[in-house]
Every structure is written in C-alpha cells, then in structure tokens.
C-alpha cells in the first residue's frame, strides 16, 4: 500500500484473547497491525488456529462472547471498538459486507431468496423501495452475480439451490447495499473445483465493477494468489509476512516459503510430499521467541529467545532472499 493511499481498514495493536477457563486464556491474536487501502485486495492466509478468522470477525465486531479485544480497528473512519447499535449496524452490511464459507448455513432456510435480499436492502437503504422496484433491483443483482434464471432463483428457498448458486446469492445479498468493503471468509472452500473457479472469476469481476476493497480469508495459497496481489500470512496469532507475493520467489518468511513449497506441483514430475514437521504452538502459552522457530529450517539460537518484529514485510531474523514485484 502506497504512502499516499488512504487506509479504509486500519487495525492497530489488535489483540484478542478467548477466555477458556477461570484463569486460562487463549491468545488468538497478538498485536496485529494491518492497513488495507480503499480498492486494494489483500488475502489473509494461514492454517487453522493462526487467527485469520478471528481477525476477520473482529473487523465487524462479530467475535464470540468469551473474547476480549484490545487495540483499535477503524473502518472507513469509524472506530469499531466504540461503535454500538445504529452506527455498528451501519458499518455491517452497508460499509463492509461479509460472505462466509458455507452458504447453506448462512442463508435462512425458511425464507426465499427474494425475502432475504429484501431484508438486507430494507436494513440499509432509505427510502425503502416498494415490492415492484425491489424485485427489479433483486433480479439485477442476481444477474450480476451470474445467475441467469434470476426469476426462478428469486422465488426459491436456499435448499433448492446448488452450492454454487447459494454462494452467488450470498454475494448478491452482500453487494445489495453497495458496500465499499467485502470480507470473504473462505468463500470457495466448500465448493466443487469447477464451481470454485467460477466463483473466483465472479469475485474478480465484481471487485473491478464495484471498485471493492477485498479482504479474502483463505488457507489455500493458490486461491489467494489468483485473487489478490497482496498476501498477508498469519501464524500463531501474528502476521508473519505482508507483501506482494505471487509465488515462492517472493516468500521471505520461512513459513510462507514452506507453505508454497509443500503445495503439490501439478506441472512437475515430482512425486514425493514435503511436509512441515512439528505443529503449531499452543496459544494458551505463546512462546517467548519466534512462534515458528521449532519448525523452521533456518532457525538459530536467537530465534528462541527474542521475539522478531516485522522488518521489510517479514517477521524474521533470517528471511529468504526474494525477488519482489512492487
């Protein structure tokens, strides 16, 4: 993000703890700093437990009741921590919309698609359009989302639609109030590979058309790189790398490097599997030094004792040399 671009999402010093027992706390996010400019797309990648989902949900204050937040989150000028009631509702859905992994679970099974679009529009638009105008509006949205038989889909219930159609409906609902930001939490993970490709294409075109700021949460590096130039890599509750990464050549942090390395390569003849030995640290007792140290091929004595800060986009004392594309 260039120094001149205004950040539409600004996260400073965000730490989130989950209370898991009378004295026990899980430090899900540890001092996260992230700025995303308007119109930019950033993919937040990592494996389970890295904190990416916690980060996404915290942006819209959707965390579970046993979570404790500290730090600042500012979205389009509004401080999320302080926002309540009307103001918070305004951000959710109007400024920033969110789509989720399993569309089948996020769509209300007892309402038709039309009713759900209507609900979303009514919540954020005033004056509220009448039914006729609403139908027209809804049809247009569904067509934009790539649903050709918009008429049938409008009157259908979610369970009557395929996974891909449901995800398109979710996207249509999300975009119904012309949000500036789209937060997508693993939008393609639950889908078949052919449908996934279609949804990725759709996301790209919608992003361009509506000039959206996209925050994409995913564990699939290939998908991340297809959708976003900027990749933010998370590990053990922290951001460990943040930059324009499109392949292993740009991976400075050893974890990022390893993630790209272990993806089975479709094109090569290589037949053995590379793995990252070890497992993620228990975030109830975060390590004093670098979280990745026990599994890192480049780790040295220093890494165990001292906690690395972000330097030139990577939280590492001994990063790889990279070929960066700015």
């Amino acid at each position, binding site marked *: 993000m260039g120094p001149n671009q205004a950040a539409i999402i600004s996260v400073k010093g965000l730490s989130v703890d989950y209370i898991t027992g009378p004295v026990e706390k899980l430090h899900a996010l540890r001092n996260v700093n992230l700025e995303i400019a308007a119109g930019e*797309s950033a993919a937040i990648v990592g*494996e*389970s437990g890295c904190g990416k989902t916690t980060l996404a949900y915290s942006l819209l204050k959707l965390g579970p009741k046993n979570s404790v937040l500290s730090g600042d989150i500012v979205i389009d000028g509004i401080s999320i921590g302080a926002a309540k009631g009307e103001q918070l509702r305004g951000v959710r859905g109007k400024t920033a919309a969110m789509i989720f992994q399993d569309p089948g679970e996020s769509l209300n099974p007892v309402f038709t698609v039309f009713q759900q679009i209507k609900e979303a529009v009514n919540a954020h638009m005033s004056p509220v359009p009448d039914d006729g105008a609403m139908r027209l509006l809804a049809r247009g949205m569904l067509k934009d989302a790539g649903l050709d038989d918009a008429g049938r889909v409008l009157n*259908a219930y979610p*369970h*009557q639609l395929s*996974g891909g159609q449901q995800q398109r409906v979710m996207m249509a609902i999300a975009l119904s109030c012309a949000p500036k930001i789209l937060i997508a939490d693993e939008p393609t993970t639950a889908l*078949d*590979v*052919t*449908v*996934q*490709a279609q949804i*990725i294409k759709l996301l*790209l075109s919608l*992003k*361009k058309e509506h000039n959206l700021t996209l925050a994409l949460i995913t*564990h*699939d*590096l*290939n*998908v991340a*790189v*297809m*959708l*976003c*130039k900027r990749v933010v890599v998370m590990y053990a509750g922290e951001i460990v790398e943040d930059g324009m990464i*499109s392949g292993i050549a740009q991976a400075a942090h050893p974890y990022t490097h*390893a*993630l790209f390395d*272990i*993806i*089975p*390569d*479709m094109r090569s003849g*290589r*037949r*053995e*599997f*590379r*793995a*990252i030995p070890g*497992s993620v640290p228990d975030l109830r007792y975060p390590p004093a030094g670098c979280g990745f140290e026990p599994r890192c091929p480049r780790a040295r004595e220093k890494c165990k004792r001292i906690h690395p800060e972000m330097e030139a986009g990577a939280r590492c004392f001994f990063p790889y040399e990279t070929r960066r594309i700015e």
Partner: protein
Amino acid sequence: MVCITGLKKSFIAQSPSHGRIKAVMAVDGVSFEIPGGRIAALVGESGSGKTTIARCICGLETPDSGEILYNGAPLVFDTKDKRRMVQYIFQDTFSSLNPRMKTGEILGEPLIFHFNLRGGALEEEKILLLGSVGLSGAVLDKYPHELSGGQRQRVVIARALSMRPGLLLADEPVSSLDVSVQAQVLSLLKELNEARGLSILFITHDLRVVKSLAHDVIVLKEGKIVEKGKVEDVFLRPGQDYTKLLLSCVPGAAPGPGA
C-alpha cells in the same frame, strides 16, 4: 486385484424442488480395476458417486447390481478374514473415532476381535501400530477430542492397518486437515503403499494431490466414468472435455489473474 464391473446403486431421495420422491442413480454402471500394489485415485465433484462406490466396495452399502471381485473371487464379507481385507478411512477425523473410547481401546478392539491378542502381546502390537503411523504410545491414554486432527487421522489409519488389509479405501482423508499436516498424512499413505504393497483407492476432489500420490486415476461425473488411465497419461493428454475442465479449474494450474 480388485475388479469392479457394471456397478449400479440408486437411492430414494426426496427431490427438494418438487417434494416428489424419486430414485437417484448415484452410481450408473461403473467398471474399473485396481491392480495390486497400486494407488488409484477416484476423482469427481460432489454428486459424482465416488463415496457410494467406495462404500459399496467395502460393504457398507449393497449395490443394486454389478460385480466386485477381489483376487478373482466375489467380495463377500462372511468371514472374519474376508472382513479384514478391505478397510476404510473417512474424511471427518472427528466422527470416525468413538468419542467415548480412548485410543488404546479403539486400537485394541480390532486386534482382540481378529487376532485374539491379550495382555503384553496386545500392548506391544498397539505400540508397533502407532509407530508405523508416526505416533508415540502417549496417545493411547487420550480421548479423540484431546488429539489434533492430524493425530486423529493417523489413529484412524492405524486402526485400519491393524487388520492387515489388502485394500485401503481412503475417502478424502486429508480434506479436513491443515495444509502442512496434509502432506504428513499423504506421505504416510505413500510409504505404506511402497513399503507394504498396500493397494489404495484414494477418493478426492483435489487434483493437486492426485498427481503426486496416485498411479492411476478414474474421473467420475454424475455416476459414470468419464475417463480413466495412468495419471501421467490422463493429466498430460486428457481425452475428455470434462477432464480438461477439471484440470483447468485447479487453483494454480495456470498462472493466476491476480488482479
């Protein structure tokens, strides 16, 4: 080693759009072979019938028609020894282990039932099994919810291996695992195939894994086989449009638009 001919299986389902009850042809005349000691990948999207085929092979479902031959003889699980021959690994690591049983008991059950092991011999065998999947004896005392996803999947594999099967059916065994852990489990499967000559039918929708793991691939669409052959052949020179479509949709198959 395993020869499947003309397999058909249908289910009664309530059509969600019309509320009418109708028969869904999950598997519609499928024939293929798994030569001994090889890994075959069964690839398809949801609704392709791949899980149903696997469940028919291992006896969890009864096919409507068709023949399944194991080493030339029809596959019927009427004796303990025959039951051991084909084992299954499930996708969901959590629900494939009884939440109320400790790992030690989970592994012990097949060992006691099939081989009548007791006492010291039983405990020794459990440790050996755990070792062969890369786990230490420490997990014996733990309940499934106390283990990580990767550990649970290995316990599932150990349980299957305890019966010394000739064919292992693995239904999306790594889909619910983290990427870094997936590789560990896949390596294990590969090693089991190479070291013991264990035949594996590997069901997946992720073509990236097929290339590195399988020898042969069978592409399924809506209950029918679209294409099958050696992995190198099919991936390099896909004959059918559907195969080409699948290959082109794999994330990372082609350089991304990365807008």
